[in-house]
């Protein structure tokens, strides 16, 4: 092999060298591929097994590859939910010395679900709404930090379960740009393109009979615009009130916390005679609940999972009558006495199907459900057992959606 590969990676895995870089990605042998459903892409994309995990490999022009790699690194650094870049490989040639396209490699996001598999799994009917909500939150978060996406779509997003909702992750930053601050034009264009793309993608699912033909695809697209605008104005609008209504400052912060955001900086101005006050959040950070749970327990989970776990922690505290104890101590006892035993009670072979926090959330749901059914307080160990037997056993493994042959997984070519 007369290849002169250039590998740019932050922490290169030597196993990368064993992959058949001298073969066009399209023709990679099935034995190196992981059977994951592929989204719609203008490029050839393949999921590949490597070092016990899965990576996504995308053939793409060299300069674009480096650019996207850099952008994804910046996004990871500032904690935006996005796929983690592994590296860029250039200088590929095939056996005849013909130049092959550069590749961008990203880590496959564990437990992530492309929208196509969510729809084909026949989930609850409001799945579309919950996906749209998740995408609106992601888009607002990206816009708050000055990221213009340029091609927002369901295909360019991955979803992870987050308690009863979803959390959205950016997977394709090819058309993106990081700015100091976005102009209203950039934001509305992104939102408008998102609407068009989402409707197009849903129309495609209808055409493929994966979605009921009565689905109002346009209304779903419109819902994104609406959700985005609501959230954007809740987070950024200026609010004005009389000086005697100062409680409204705290109320605004509470409202933002409830939406899952922390206020890093709030601008407060008063008019000259001090009769009215204007407030406007200047810096807001997503992840209010997940940060609080992290501080209390060290658990790193998604926002709504954190919200659920914190609620359980609160009821534990009340039930144990430990309201006057330090929150940190109670949290520690809850972790070792409730959370960990619950997760451990799930048989090992079933446990890997879902993230631990998601498992815990579903067990809580299940306990509530059977408690109501049996009109008694079902204890945790019993709830876990019932959940595993009646729910989890029939669930697909979502750590990496398997079961699709690579050909069937291929949606575009």
């Amino acid at each position: 092999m007369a290849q002169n590969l250039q590998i740019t990676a932050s922490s290169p895995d030597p196993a990368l060298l064993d992959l058949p870089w001298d073969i066009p990605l399209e023709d990679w042998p099935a034995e190196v591929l992981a059977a994951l459903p592929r989204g719609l892409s203008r490029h050839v994309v393949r999921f590949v097994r490597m070092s016990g995990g899965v990576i996504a490999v995308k053939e793409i022009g060299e300069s674009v590859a480096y650019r996207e790699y850099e952008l994804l690194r910046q996004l990871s650094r500032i904690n935006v939910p996005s796929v983690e870049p592994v590296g860029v490989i250039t200088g590929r040639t095939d056996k005849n010395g013909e130049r092959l396209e550069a590749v961008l490699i990203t880590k496959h996001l564990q437990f992530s679900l492309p929208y196509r598999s969510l729809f084909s799994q026949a989930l609850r009917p409001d799945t579309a709404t919950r996906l749209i909500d998740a995408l609106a939150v992601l888009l607002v978060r990206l816009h708050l930090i000055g990221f213009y996406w340029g091609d927002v779509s369901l295909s360019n997003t991955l979803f992870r379960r987050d308690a009863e909702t979803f959390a959205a992750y950016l997977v394709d930053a090819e058309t993106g740009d990081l700015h100091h601050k976005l102009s209203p034009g950039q934001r509305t264009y992104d939102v408008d393109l998102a609407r068009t793309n989402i409707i197009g993608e849903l129309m495609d699912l209808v055409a493929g009979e994966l979605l009921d033909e009565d689905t109002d695809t346009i209304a779903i697209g419109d819902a994104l615009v609406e959700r985005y605008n609501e959230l954007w104005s809740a987070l950024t609008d200026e609010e004005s009130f009389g000086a005697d209504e100062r409680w409204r400052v705290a109320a605004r912060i509470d409202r933002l916390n409830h939406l899952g955001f922390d206020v890093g900086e709030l601008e407060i101005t008063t008019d000259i005679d001090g009769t009215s006050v204007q407030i406007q959040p200047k810096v807001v950070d997503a992840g209010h609940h997940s940060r609080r749970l992290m501080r209390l327990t060290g658990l790193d989970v998604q926002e709504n999972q954190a919200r659920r776990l914190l609620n359980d922690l609160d009821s534990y505290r009340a039930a144990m009558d430990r309201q006057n104890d330090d929150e940190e101590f109670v949290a520690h006892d809850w972790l070792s006495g409730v959370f960990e035993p619950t997760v451990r009670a799930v048989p090992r072979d079933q446990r890997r199907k879902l993230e631990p926090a998601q498992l815990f959330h579903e067990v809580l749901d299940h306990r509530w459900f059977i408690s109501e059914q049996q009109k008694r307080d079902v204890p945790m160990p019993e709830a876990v057992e019932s959940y595993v037997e009646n729910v989890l056993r029939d669930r697909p493994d979502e750590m990496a959606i398997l079961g699709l042959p690579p050909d069937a997984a291929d949606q575009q070519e």
Partner: protein
Amino acid sequence: MATVTYDHASRIYPGTERPAVDQLNLHVEDGEFLVLVGPSGCGKSTSLRMLAGLEDVNAGRILIGDRDVTDVQPKDRDIAMVFQNYALYPHMSVADNMGFALKIAGKPKSEIRSRVEEAAKILDLTEYLDRKPKALSGGQRQRVAMGRAIVRNPQVFLMDEPLSNLDAKLRVQTRTQIASLTRRLEVTTVYVTHDQVEALTMGDRIAVLKDGVLQQVDTPRALYDSPKNVFVAGFIGSPAMNIGTFSVTNGVAKIGQAQIPLTRDAVAGLTAEDNGKVTLGFRPEALDIVPESDPSAIEIEVNIVEELGSDAYVYGTLKGDAAGADLASAGAGDHEVIVRINPRTAPAKGERIHVAIRPGQEHVFSPTTGLRLSSQ
């Protein structure tokens, strides 16, 4: 269809001193294909995004036709960003892939069908309309993406480096297709690229930008033959022009012993600030092999010969009296010049050749201002 006018349009990013786009004045004719070209950071993409409504215009204004769109939302500007998204939907027919945006806009079925059919005719896709994208070649898929923009009947097409993520073969193919299609459609098109070859092959006119400032806007031929300044001279053309600064005595520039007489116009344009110097440029193909005794002969040692079949290029270093002179081509190494020669009589590496600038084919610039002095 419409004209596009940038009227002293500027974009200044907060916290920066130099405008990303500085007082751009540019008028694009109805149906014209205008290319914005320049090195990275020159402001070409920013200019395009200002027209698209994706960047604020901090000073000046932008018009589409007679309408001032400076403060109009992107979606209300009646423009299409072509190739912005061209993932095709696998379950939808080619026709639906092209027309779905019209369906979203609530257009009646019959109108959608007729607009799609019209676009398909222009794009040579008529026979594929009822097939799935799977059945199309790479080039045909590109055309479907183009069709998405065409069916919307926009006033202006905007394209921002649309070929940058295609492989080399598809790039050349798509380049030709875009160029011929936009001519046939007679849609005003503004196209951004960093690649001057792409610019020369596609544009009716080309606007060259550097550091946010428009350097020159002209036809490809005029840019090539009469660059207005040293930057444009060095940027346009492949391989790049040889450019250097030399002393002038009595209207004659000297490259070592070689005497290059300048036109009266050019000499008249020199000022005291130029300090008896002049900047000369000559393209690789403006040089002829001459005998050593020729008074305008420049001696060059051959470092490498690049054979391209129809042509060959010598990359060489100045020797003899001219050795060490400040002369180089942006397309070659330090102090290297490029000479186009007949491939059948190509010299060998290490050989010395003598070349002279064909009379009238030198480009003369002021060393102080960088502006063109010769009138041609």
